[in-house]
């Protein structure tokens, strides 16, 4: 009940703010957030799902770029360890409804440094509302993520 009341109050405040300014729609501002979802790696032609994966989205101060850290990912089923991988230098483009993510090629960071073996190519994705989706290639492995913001 309390949650519903707070949500209604928050929605009303947003409505009043929007009405008061009456200016053209502003692009969505990227903000630091964490998402939980499923990472799917295409391994030997078949999808291999990593469920309940936590992903951190960390925009740079200028809001034009960001990094994404995927926690405890396993690229292939036989991997006896999971690792944290950070993809730096992702370009952000804000629109009124979403933030578009893109990166043609970048060397990710893992295990304390650059990890060229899993160089990221063809990254594209978006943050729309509370959802983050992106796809990329980790080396030879096509990979995708779809998740929702944590704490909702």
């Amino acid at each position, binding site marked *: 009940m309390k949650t519903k009341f707070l949500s209604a109050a928050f929605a009303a405040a947003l409505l009043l703010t929007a009405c008061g300014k009456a200016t053209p729609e502003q692009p969505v501002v990227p903000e630091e957030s964490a998402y939980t979802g499923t990472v799917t790696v295409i391994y030997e032609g078949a999808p291999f799902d990593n469920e309940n994966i936590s992903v951190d989205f960390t925009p740079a101060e200028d809001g034009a770029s960001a990094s994404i850290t995927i*926690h*405890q990912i396993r690229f292939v089923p036989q*991997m*006896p*360890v*999971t*690792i*944290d*991988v950070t993809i730096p230098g992702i370009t952000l483009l804000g629109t009124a409804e979403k933030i578009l993510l893109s990166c043609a090629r970048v060397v990710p960071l*893992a*295990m*304390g*440094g*650059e*990890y060229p*073996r899993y160089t990221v190519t063809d990254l594209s994705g978006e943050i729309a509302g509370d959802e983050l989706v992106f796809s990329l290639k980790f080396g030879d492995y096509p990979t995708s993520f779809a998740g929702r913001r944590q704490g909702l």
Partner: protein
Amino acid sequence: MIKALLISTLLIHAAPADTVELLPATVSVLKEQMSIEYIPSPVSVVRAAELSQTGISRPQGLSSRIPGLYIPDYGASLTATIYLRGMGSRMDNPVMGLYVDGIPILDKNAYVFDWEDVVRVTMLHGPQGTLYGRNSMGGVLTLRTLSPSDRTRPALNLEYGTAGHLRISASAIIGSNALSITFRHLNGFFQNTYKNEPCDPYNGAALRWKWEGAVKSVRLQNTLSATASREGGFAYGKWDNGQQKRVSYNDEGSYGRISLIDGLHAQFRRDAIVADASASIQVLSDQMKMDQDFTPVSVFTLQQRQRSMAGTVEVRISRNAAEKVWIPQTGIFAMYKRNRITAPVNFKRAGIEELILSHANAHIPPDIGHLAIPDEEIPVNSNFLIGTWNTALFHESVFVLGKWQFTAGLRLDYEGAMMDYDCLASLHYQFIPTMSSEKSFSVPYAGVKRHDHLVLLPKLSALYRAGSFVSLYATASKGYRSGGFNTQIFSDILQNMTMNALMRDLGVYLDRPVVSVTAGNTEYDPEQAWNFETGARIRKGAFSAELSAYAIVLRDQQLTVFPPGLSTGRMMTNAGRSRSLGAEVQLDWMPGNFRSHLSWSWCDARFVSYHDGNSDYSGNPVPYIPKHTLYVSAGYSLPLGSCRLEIDAFLRGTGPVSWNEANTLEDPFRARIDARAALVFPQWEIYLRGENLTDSNGHVFYFKSIGNEFFANEKPRAFLAGISIKF
């Protein structure tokens, strides 16, 4: 005699009027209300003459001489491991209380010292918790040292023998003071083949000053003891496919100790009341350096330094025992001990490779990379401040009804302890190929743990004086061994925590992460034993006998278990229950110039329940406990005009002994023979003594370290010659 009286008279007159005078008797070291003849437990007594004849000068020498007692002579003076009636463990609190001149020695690290001026050793078998409290679960060993009232002449003893053994000791009574001093040197019996030098040299000195006197009607006795020693030790040889290798390790193994104990007794007697008060201050500073892998490879070392201060106070009030039907005794006891321990474990290059990197990299696929630690050494620093306090209220009533004597006692014993731990592991690491340079990394671990316990220790006994020479008794009593903290396991905890934290720092997560216990798992509770015993005591002329049989039920047994995860050590926990069934026999026959003694013990100690984390050992014999101990001695004094020739022979045996819980390693019953020949004149004597004449090299200790097995062997044959002069 006239001279002694003259001296004592002079001293009495020299003392301030009405304040101090020399008294003819010392304060009793036993707390029992009855004479030793009527104590309802087996009693062993070793007098000064026997100590001198046998050369027993350290507690290990009492092994087998006191039936059921096994204190293997291995390691260093720190490692006073005591096994008694199926109880005991090599770590932490002892199962036997040690009292020197009525003062309880609180630190097991101080149990082993040179006994040059000990004039009487008395052992009370079985739990003596009601009167003696903590750690007297298997029995109490009391030592009485030279007192001014002993009136002995000044003496000088010199002894030299195998392995560079040299002992010089002197004692003198000057007025109200008894002084004794001892120095002992040993080159060592066991060669460290890696260093090509003896690994067990010893240099130590001990000083004791005892003063006796009285202030008005209060008898006083103050004893100040100081010891300092520096020794090697840890003569452990690898056990490799059933073959005993020689001692060979590369890092330092040594132990140094300074201890200072001052104990003050006061006794007040009135017609019906006797009040005894005692207080002590005990200071111990020691340092042990140990090659923990005991191999020529630099794996890991331990340096353990302790600074311990303790104090005890006891007050007992009892009714004068003479001709009374009811003889009550009530007392209070309090102690506090503060122990600061620093115990850094240093992982050296081979240890970093074998114990840390190999485990970590075994779980990381080579195509991802591998962990590298460039450090030559990784220090795992562990600092502890441990406080232990104990207070007790106790009462024991003895009822003498004709030929019957009944004893009922109860002790309410409260013990608390606090451990403040502050640990830090530091290293540099690099993950190859992703990291271009090494990274500094450290893991702190600090906190405080506290626990306390309340224990009730009852005792009931009945003794029947079946005649002038025979007493029969039955006793049920309870004892306990204090709980504590496993400080030894902290290096393992830090090692595992460091590995997990390092992996997290890297962003690498093992499917089977290193599981580790925490500080919360390092606490263990008191161990408690109920002892049911029946026995007989016979004294007739030159013959005396002590016969007893007992059953002991041990609860919350303090046993070592394997902690979960990758560990180099084991930790103490209340892991099981056991029971001991046994019988003890002591016979003495000393007609004329002949003397003989036999001590024999049979003990069947088995786990009722014990799972060490890996296996279930319920039903198995408890390791390290000899099934039999045997000691036989015979001697004869042959008068030769103004002197006499004394010939004595001693046989000492133990076994069979199982060395592990699975009972897959066992030593059979082994015996060694010692002998002595002495020419004794009224004022001096010379003697030749042989120890371990059969050169028995049986095992006296076994342990495992990082998967390797090790044994310590009995000391080899030795010959000693000495001279004692009384001035």
